[in-house]
């Protein structure tokens, strides 16, 4: 056990795991380029459901399995490396720079957890509704009714029809009803779901609006990680700038 911990705590392991992960993900990028539709299916399908459809084509997903192993090892390595660093940092007089490094590594763990959740948990439904129509989303336990939509004067779909850029929907849940206003780039949140206007340019019939109802737990975790990473970046930039200034001042004095 101790040997395993020593092995996992080596920074050299982090280096090679990151190089291997980068290489495998680039392999995945080439696979995605050659099988665009198949891989993009993962955007609105959970991994386990996607594998049921594409299980007979290992060329599409073998890299994902390898990546999963590599990232699991990387997460373990990050934990084992960061913990002693945290303990050391607590004993240092001026730990600002070290704290940003720790914060970055915590962010990596949060990002990995977020992607894991997004890949394996949640629901996604794409609904095409005309005003006055209502549809049930069984996986979410709610129904959506489109009350009205606003169309762009400039943006057209592939058939030359104006695209819907805002909509009003009624969310019908067992606990009650609520009205939600959706806008392009401004999703609404109801019953743990995020509701987006699809802004889709293909296959939407005249007068209809396409709405995406998504329950993505990983997205919230990723948002938390993103906020922390932005904070860490800001702190790092300030510290690096101050260090640069004091170095140049020292240079002037000497």
């Amino acid at each position, binding site marked *: 056990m101790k040997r395993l911990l020593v092995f996992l705590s080596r920074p050299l392991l982090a280096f090679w795991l*990151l190089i291997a992960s980068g290489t495998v*993900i680039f392999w995945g*990028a080439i696979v995605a380029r050659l099988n665009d539709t198949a*891989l993009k299916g993962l955007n609105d399908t959970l991994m386990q459901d996607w594998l049921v459809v594409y299980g007979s084509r290992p060329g599409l997903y073998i890299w994902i399995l390898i990546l999963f192993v590599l990232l699991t090892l990387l997460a373990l390595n990050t934990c084992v490396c960061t913990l002693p660093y945290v303990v050391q940092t607590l004993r240092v007089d001026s730990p600002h720079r070290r704290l940003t490094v720790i914060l970055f590594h915590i962010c990596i763990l949060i990002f990995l957890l977020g992607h894991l959740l997004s890949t394996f948990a949640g629901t996604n439904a794409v609904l095409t509704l005309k005003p006055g129509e209502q549809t049930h989303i069984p996986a979410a336990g709610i129904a959506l009714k489109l009350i009205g939509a606003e169309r762009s004067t400039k943006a057209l779909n592939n058939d030359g029809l104006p695209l819907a850029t805002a909509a009003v929907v009624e969310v019908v849940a067992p606990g009650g009803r609520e009205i939600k206003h959706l806008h392009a780039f401004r999703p609404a949140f109801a019953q743990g779901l995020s509701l987006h206007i699809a802004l889709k340019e293909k296959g939407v019939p005249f007068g209809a609006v396409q709405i995406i109802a998504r329950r993505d737990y990983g997205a919230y975790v990723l948002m938390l990680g993103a906020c922390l990473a932005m904070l860490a970046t800001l702190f790092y930039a300030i510290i690096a700038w101050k260090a640069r200034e004091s170095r140049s001042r020292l240079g002037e004095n000497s």
Partner: protein
Amino acid sequence: MSYAFGMSSASGIYLAAVLLYGLGMRRTAEAGLAAGIVANLAALLARGFIGGTWYIDQVVMEDALLPAGLAILALYLACHEDRARLRIVLISLAACALLMLLAPKDPAVPFLRSQTLWAPLFFLTETVSIVLFMAASTLAVADLVTKRMTLTSRPLLLWGFIAFTICQIVGGVWAYVGWSYPFSWSDRHLASAAVWCLAAALLHADFAGVGTRTRAWCTALMLIPVVYLSLFNTLFETGVRLVEVLS
């Protein structure tokens, strides 16, 4: 001024500036770089003005911004008298300028999902990081060719990594509000993730005790996903257009 004329002029000015630097006319070459940046940015501004409306997503066109980014980096290095690195950055600039000179310059078509501030923020931060990564990788290639290992530049990687991390976060937010998911299983997002992992690995190289030669090889090889991410479509379209013209 049309985008096609402006971009071709900017590319020509960059190539002339590189040539002048090669001939030892440093001050003229620096003035040429500055003129190229102005022409390049003016061409992009012209591209974004369509039917009386500004479309900022058409201004921050990544492949056309790359030469401007490299020229700015070259001017920065020239100001700091870092001639060894400047020479290598100028080679990258000449390659990018030549590509943009030959690349097809199709008229801009506004894309609805890019009509948000997240899109230009994403492309700007990505361009900054790609410029820095490209410079770091070409310096590593130069190190490997000359077998001296004197040009490797950690600051380029570090600031490139910081800009790229911000870019990935901004891109994630844009994808979430525009498409409903923060990460897409498309070749572009995956190539971005690959570049991020490789840059993160290279930042660990110092603490991990990785040899200078291994580090230089890894930095040099990072050029493949970096070019794939930023220039693959332009390279492909230019190749197709050249084959059509030649046949």
